[in-house]
């Protein structure tokens, strides 16, 4: 049945990304070919190659760390905070100027809808640089003593789900505090970080202050293990986070980790229902559910379960799964074949465990990595799909009867990154927030991010905070 109001294709122009045939790594202020493999970065929406990138080899890692050390001991430490801050303001403004180009590039490389990269990823990346630029000359007021010092050379390894934004979350506070950095974007999404390197070069940042190395796990390990690295910041899976924590044990290297999650989105019977539906949808389908703080467990008060599920299913039928560059697409492609396989596997597990599976009707393209938004009802706390992070557009629905039960179920996980609470009652919001063992609690909203607001996890979701005054702590020798 063809809809009455059929939205015609509204494609954003691919040319705006100004894709190059190849991209180079950035070491000591210059672009060069990596000594590692030449790898093609593909577009997950159609599996077509976008560009070639030469990955870093061991000698590149070594060069980068040495360059970062020279820069740290040389011009960067000698510079006043006010001057450092002005470099960061330049970078922030340049990101704003090139925002459309960066957004299209990000959607091509990652698979996320242009609506998200344009309205969320790129503006927040600029805002992070802008916020931390202002701290560079105010560290004495940050609550870490009258003259807090930087740590030194930081190794920063970031994931594929928000490539540019994660680069901003890492570089901005590190530089504001006077550190230098060696950054490695994820293997499947190197392009926006390499364009950020261009922006950094155009800002005339002294050579070696920021180095960007493309590559896979081996490059990441080399950075983590390198003697010249004083501090490591990692965002990625809990599994890899634990490996890194083991690797640096006893080395004296400082470490912050931002890992996985299995957040509970708790809806009480007095929730503002229509907005709760929006929050649930945003919570698990934003970025195709590939978000560490995704609201992947819906905990609904049993008395309103039927009503909420009906409303949710009606709302899911309006979600548009489609080409990432179409401005009307709500749900884009999954980032890689590997990730898609994992989502499919765990969804089959969910069915096997006896949960009821539902997806709205949607046409998925033949090429590319695609998964329909999926709901599992009748899930219990003991099922794998309530415990394991799927990292995809799959929502597990559980019920609860009382606030205490909701808290118990929400906390009953090794993870502790985020949680959502939906109720019109203020005291209940505060009581729940007090008791939820999660680093971020969203009340009557979800997936809200701001450079001023600290973000990070409890338990196996990691330690350390990014954003806000607290985000400086990971980059100061305090």
């Amino acid at each position, binding site marked *: 049945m063809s809809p009455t109001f059929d939205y015609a294709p509204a494609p954003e122009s691919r040319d705006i990304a100004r894709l190059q045939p190849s991209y180079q790594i950035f070491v000591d202020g210059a672009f060069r070919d990596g000594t590692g493999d030449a790898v093609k970065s593909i577009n997950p929406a159609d599996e077509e190659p976008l560009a070639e990138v030469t990955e870093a080899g061991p000698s590149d890692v070594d060069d980068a760390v040495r360059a970062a050390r020279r820069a740290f001991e040389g011009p960067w430490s000698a510079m006043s905070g006010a001057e450092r801050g002005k470099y960061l303001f330049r970078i922030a403004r340049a990101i704003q100027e090139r925002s459309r180009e960066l957004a299209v590039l990000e959607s091509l490389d990652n698979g996320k809808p242009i609506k998200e990269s344009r309205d969320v990823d790129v503006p927040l990346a600029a805002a992070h640089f802008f916020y931390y630029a202002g701290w560079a000359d*105010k560290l004495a*007021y940050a609550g870490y003593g009258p003259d807090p010092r930087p740590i030194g050379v930081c190794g920063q390894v970031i994931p594929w789900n928000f490539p540019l934004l994660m680069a901003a979350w890492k570089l901005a506070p590190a530089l504001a505090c006077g550190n230098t950095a060696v950054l490695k974007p994820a293997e499947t999404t190197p392009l926006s970080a390499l364009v950020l390197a261009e922006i950094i070069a155009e800002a005339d940042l002294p050579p070696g202050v920021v180095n960007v190395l493309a590559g896979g796990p081996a490059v990441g390990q080399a950075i983590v293990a390198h003697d010249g690295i004083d501090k490591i910041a990692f965002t990625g899976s809990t599994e890899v986070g634990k490996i890194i924590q083991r690797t640096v044990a006893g080395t004296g290297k400082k470490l912050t980790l931002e890992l996985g999650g299995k957040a509970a989105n708790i809806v009480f019977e007095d929730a503002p229902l229509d907005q709760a539906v929006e929050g649930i949808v945003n919570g698990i389908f934003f970025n195709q559910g590939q978000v560490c703080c995704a609201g992947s467990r819906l905990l609904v008060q049993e008395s309103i379960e039927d009503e909420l599920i009906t409303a949710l299913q009606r709302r899911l039928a309006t979600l548009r799964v489609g080409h990432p560059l179409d401005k009307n697409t709500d749900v884009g492609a999954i980032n890689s074949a590997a990730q898609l396989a994992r989502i499919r596997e765990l969804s089959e597990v969910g069915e096997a465990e006896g949960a009821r599976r539902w997806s709205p009707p949607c046409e998925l393209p033949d090429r590319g990595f695609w998964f329909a938004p999926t709901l599992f009802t009748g899930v219990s706390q003991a099922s794998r799909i309530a415990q394991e992070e799927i990292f995809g557009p799959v929502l597990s629905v559980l019920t609860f009867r009382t606030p205490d039960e909701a808290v118990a179920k929400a906390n009953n996980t090794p993870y502790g990154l985020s949680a959502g609470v939906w109720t019109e009652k203020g005291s209940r919001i505060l009581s729940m927030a007090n008791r939820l063992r999660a680093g971020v609690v969203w009340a009557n909203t979800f997936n809200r991010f701001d450079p001023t607001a600290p973000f990070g996890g409890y338990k196996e979701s990691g330690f350390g905070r990014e954003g806000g005054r607290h985000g400086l702590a990971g980059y100061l020798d305090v």
Partner: protein
Amino acid sequence: MSEPRVAVRKTYKLYIGGAFPRSESGRSYPVSGPGGEVVHVAQASRKDLRDAVVAARSASVKWSAMTAYNRGQILYRIAEMLEGRREQFAGYAGVAEVDAAIDRWVHYAGWADKYSQVAGGTNPVSGPYFTFSLPEPTGVVGVLAPQQSSLLGLVSVLAPVLTTGNTAVVVAAQNRPLPAVTLAEVLGTSDLPGGVVNLLTGFTAELAPWLAAHRDVNALDLTGAAPGVRASLQAAAADNVKRVYVPSDDDWTAAPGLSRLNAFVETKTVWHPIGV
């Protein structure tokens, strides 16, 4: 033979409500221009001051409701515009002072979205209540700009008022008003909403008492007031319990600290029970 070009001379006007009017009193007074020539600047009257306060009050609704991020963006844009006029300002104040003034403006732009994290916080009360205290702008601040340091000093007294969400009525340095007028032109091209800053050139001794006594002004910065008149201005300010900032020193090159940010905010404490 080519004749020497006749220059277009500037008229130096007031800045009120985003516009550049002459004084309603029609008066002006002479000061020295950048090349030593005589220029006439508007001599503001108490009615100009009254209009400026109305404009500042009206603008304060929108300015204080903006997100701190937006205010910071506008303040940074002002710094960009100042940088663009570096040579022009250097004609009044010398390059070193101009650079310091621009950097000082950038410094305050960067405070906009972080000051409340330093000045505010939660209070660990002994009871099942969530309580937090936040700085909020006091409203309209009357500022007597320093008489000597007409650019760096001016920026140092004005920027902190704006960063905390207040609007300002500024009486410029009486004998060195030109940087203030040029600054007003910068503000007029920086996406700053009209009325957030109002700049009056004129005689400090004439205008200050009206500013100090004005009941719709919430706070007063006495920096540009002669020491002998400070007491009477403070007394006049008591009529509506203004918050009065009395400066302790005039070293504009020193790090500014927090005192000028703290001076023009009110602290609001909110309580809410914690329970199911």
